[in-house]
Each structure stands twice: as C-alpha cells, then as structure tokens.
C-alpha cells in the first residue's frame, strides 16, 4: 500500500523530468558568434530552432508567473489575472450551457418522439467547431453595442459546451430503472413529484458526467473565442504574444491552459464521484 502510494507520486515526477529533458534537447538555443569583420551575430541553433527550451521559457516569462495577479498594462498582466478573465467568461457561458442543456436532455430522454425529431439535428450540430460558431455569434449580436463581443463569446461557449450535457442527461433519463418508476406509480406521485423526487436524483450521476465533459469543452473553446474577438484573457494574451514573436509566452500559456483545464476536470470528477457513490 505504502509502496504504491510512493510510486504514484514518484512516477509522474520522473515523467515530468523526462519530458523537460526531451524538450530541452530538441529546443533551439541562441548563441552569439563573432564574424570575421568583427561584428557580432546572434543565431538560433538546435533541432527545432524556434522552440524555446524550458530554461529559456522560465527566464523570459517569470515576470508573469512570480507576480501572477499583477496588472502593469492592459496587455501586460500576470498570467493568473489573464486566466481569471477567461475563467469568468467560461463560467458564464458554461452556466448558460447547463441551464439550456439539462432540460433539453430531459425532454430528449423522456419523449421518444422528441428524441426522434431532434436527435439528427443534434448529431449534426455537435461536431461543429467553435471557430465556425464564433462568426455567427458576432453577426447575431452585432448591434448589441458594447456587450456584443461578450454576448458572441457566451453564445459560442454555450452552444459548443452544451452537447455533452444534453446527451448524457438524455441517456441518464432513459436509464432510470423501471423499478423506481413503478415505486412512483404505486405511491401515486404527481408528475412534478416524480420528476424531482425520483427522476432527477436517479439521473444525477449521468448529468454530472455530462457537466464534466461540458466544462472541458467550454475551457477548450475560450482560447479560440478570445483569439477571434480580442477579449482580454489568456487566449488573447497568447495570440498577442504570437504576433509579437514572443514564443516563450506561448509555451507559458499552453502550460497554464493545460493546468487549469486539468484542475477543472479533477474538481468536477470529484463531484461526479460523490454522486456516483450514492447510487
């Protein structure tokens, strides 16, 4: 038991170390050399010349990390401050996705007719990329004035993140054991009572699986949305730094986005497991 515990800490650390090593090896480095005419020239050497290595990344981007909430200028802020802006908008879009998606899932799960009518449409809309939804969002909310950008972003996040919630809720509703419904019938529960006391509790584990997947997508979408709309946030920061040719910041952003996504998923799966434990 003890040993297994050790390994589950040690092995990921070894993995990270190996990855950093490999990264350092393939990345390029800057060297200065003196030319014959006395001038000095900087050149990038290495296998993937333009990829900054871990050491270089750390040196160039540490000001964003050591003061994560600093706000120096509009486009020069701490990395967690940028992340926070993104998280706020993700939270709003995600909330919309859940509020719309859960009842839709229930309708699909409850009514075979409804399911037959809308399932094909959902299957077609589901794989559409956020990059395709975004322009539509911008057009739809073009005359919303100052909040146009935000509304377009929310629209894109909600419409992309909704589907796992819809589909998992529908599956969960269809999977409610007939026994539970028989109990409701014998007790003569009203429709609302059956919904709230039997169906929703029985579907919760499925709903939370949907919620977790939806959150993952919402976080995936935010980067694309910020790149297109220019909203301040981590995706926008990444894009600006790309345009400025600061590749170290891109790496920092990728690592941050990954870590945040991972944490969100962990948190949701803890919640999910709590509900699974009950059933």
């Amino acid at each position, binding site marked *: 038991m003890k040993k297994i515990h050790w390994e589950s800490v040690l092995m990921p650390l070894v993995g990270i170390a190996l990855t950093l090593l490999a990264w350092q090896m393939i990345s390029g480095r800057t060297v200065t050399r003196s030319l014959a005419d006395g001038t000095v020239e900087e050149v990038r050497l290495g296998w993937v010349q333009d990829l900054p290595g871990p050491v270089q990344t750390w040196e160039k981007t540490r000001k964003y990390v050591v003061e994560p909430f600093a706000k120096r200028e509009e486009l020069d802020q701490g990395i967690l401050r940028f992340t926070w802006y993104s998280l706020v908008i993700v939270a709003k879009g995600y909330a919309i996705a859940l509020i719309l998606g859960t009842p839709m899932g229930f309708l699909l799960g409850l009514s075979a007719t409804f399911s037959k009518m809308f399932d094909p449409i959902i299957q077609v809309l589901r794989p559409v990329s956020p990059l395709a939804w975004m322009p539509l969002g911008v057009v739809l909310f073009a005359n919303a004035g100052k909040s146009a950008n935000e509304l377009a972003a929310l629209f894109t996040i909600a419409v992309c993140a909704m589907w796992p919630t819809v589909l998992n809720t529908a599956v969960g509703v269809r999977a409610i054991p007939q026994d*539970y419904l*028989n*109990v409701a*019938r*014998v007790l*003569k529960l009203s429709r609302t009572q059956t919904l709230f006391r039997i169906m929703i509790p029985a579907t919760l584990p499925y709903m939370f699986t949907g919620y977790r997947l939806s959150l993952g997508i919402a976080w995936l979408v935010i980067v694309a949305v910020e790149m297109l709309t220019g909203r301040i946030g981590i995706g926008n920061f990444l894009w600006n730094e790309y345009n400025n040719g600061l590749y170290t910041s891109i790496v920092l952003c990728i690592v941050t986005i990954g870590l945040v996504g991972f944490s969100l998923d962990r948190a949701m799966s803890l919640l999910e497991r709590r509900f699974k434990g*009950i059933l």
Partner: protein
Amino acid sequence: MSFLVLDRVSKGFGPPEARREVLRGVDLSVEQGEIVAIVGYSGAGKSTLLHLVSGLLGPDTGSVRLDGRTIEGPGPDRGVVFQNYSLLPWLTVAENIRLAVDSVFPGWTEAQRAEQVDRHIHLVNLTPARDRRPGELSGGMRQRVSVARALAMDPRILLLDEPLGALDALTRGTLQDEISRICRASGKTVVLITNDPDEGILMADRIIPLSAGPGATLGPSFPVVLDPTRDRRALNHDPRFKALRAEVVAWLMGPGARPAVSVSRKLILPDLEPEDLEIPRSLIGGRRRPRRRSEERRETVDLNP
C-alpha cells in the same frame, strides 16, 4: 364475495402478430385477512400475476377486482414489495419510508408522519440502521425496509413478490419467520409469491401452484392445516407438512404443469476436414490439402421423452 377476485384473467406480451401469452384463464379469490401463497416455476408469470393485482399491468381479458371494484391502476391501497426491493438508493432507510408516508398521508401532521416512519422501522428491527442508505445494507435488511415501506402505507392488501428469493438459505429461514410474524400481526390480506413450496407452506394459510408458462394457469388450492406457531424444526418431521409438500410438488411436476425442458448448446466441430490418403499427392490436381472448416452446428436436444 371475496375480497380479491381474479376472473378468467389472461395476459400476454408483444405485438399482436407475435404475442406470447403468459397467463391464460387465471381464476383466484382471496378472502379478507387471508395469507395466500402462489408457488411456481421461474419465468412462469408470477410477477406478471402480482402486477395485475398491483395495477402496474392491466389484464388483456378478464377482470381483477378488489373489494368489488375493478382495479384500474396502481395505488397505495395495495402495498407492493417488489422482487428486487426497489428502494431508492439515494435515500436513507427512514427517507425511503418517509417518501411513501408523505405521499399516502398528505393530511397528517409532521409528528404523525415521523411516528409512522419510526414505528415501522422498529417493526422490522432496523432502528439502528435508520440513517443508512440501501447500498450499505445487506440483502435481508433491504428486504425488511421494503416490507416496512409497504406496511407504512397502511395498504388494504400486501403483495409480496418472492420477498426472500435473493437471500441465502439460512437468512431466508429467519426472515420467513419474521415476515410471517409481521404479516399475521398486521392482520392484512397478503398475496405471497414464491418459488419454494416449503416457504409457501410455512408462511401462508393457503398455497396455490402456478403451472409453467406459456399460458400458465393456477392449480387447485391447498389449505395449510398446521398449527399456527409453525416451529420450523418441528415442522420438518410433521407428516402433514410432508404430505402437503408432496401434493403441491406432485401437481407442479405433473402433466400440463411441468415446463417443457429443452437444452440448446453450441457444438464446436473440429476445424479440419480429414485428408483422403487414397488419392496420391501431386502438385496439380491430385490430393487436396487438409481443409479448414470454421463452422458451428446448433443442436437442440429434447429431454422430455
């Protein structure tokens, strides 16, 4: 007229062109306060029969009447103990029973409802487990919760569907006594479904065998004339008990009541065709190489003479 009456009841499943009749021409009458056991083979249609009474299913032909009124649908005047307990896993023992009490007695005060819940938990000896969820209970305990939930609804008739079917033999024995005691004490009319003739004899006033499906029907009813204490150790040697059990089993094993037994099994034949050694081996034409033949044959053996 009897309290519960089933009159020429038939029930089948499936679309009209491929209908499988499960019950055919079932007649049953149960008096008020009587405990009736129905014994039958697995898959004969025992649960179907019970659900015709609970109202979860409706008969195709014939009628089911409780106290003179035709049963239209499920309702709390018929307490059901489902075959698989059907407790709601997200509610505790007390909450499961409370849900039933709340929906059946909306007019009661909070104190009355709490009292009803506590009394029934106590009745099945589960007071220490009242705040546990079904997942944390043993099979026998879940069974008792299910009985308590059905009784807490104060139904006019109690329907038990193989209440002890999923339990091991020892637990079964003690629970038979316990449930039997609770049922008798409640004075309610009880229909008990079981697949064990002993259990039926031990717990009921009357035992009726159900023939094997399809088109199952009820046999003659055998009154249980044993002293009401029914000590199970003494009972094993009681000649009347033995005789009754022999009669019930004989009817169930008799012509017409016994299921048609056939066994279907997959036979896997060797994958090689034998090689004909008579034909001389040569490169062209000549003896063919050993041939693989990946195929199965299905064979049905009828075990009835």
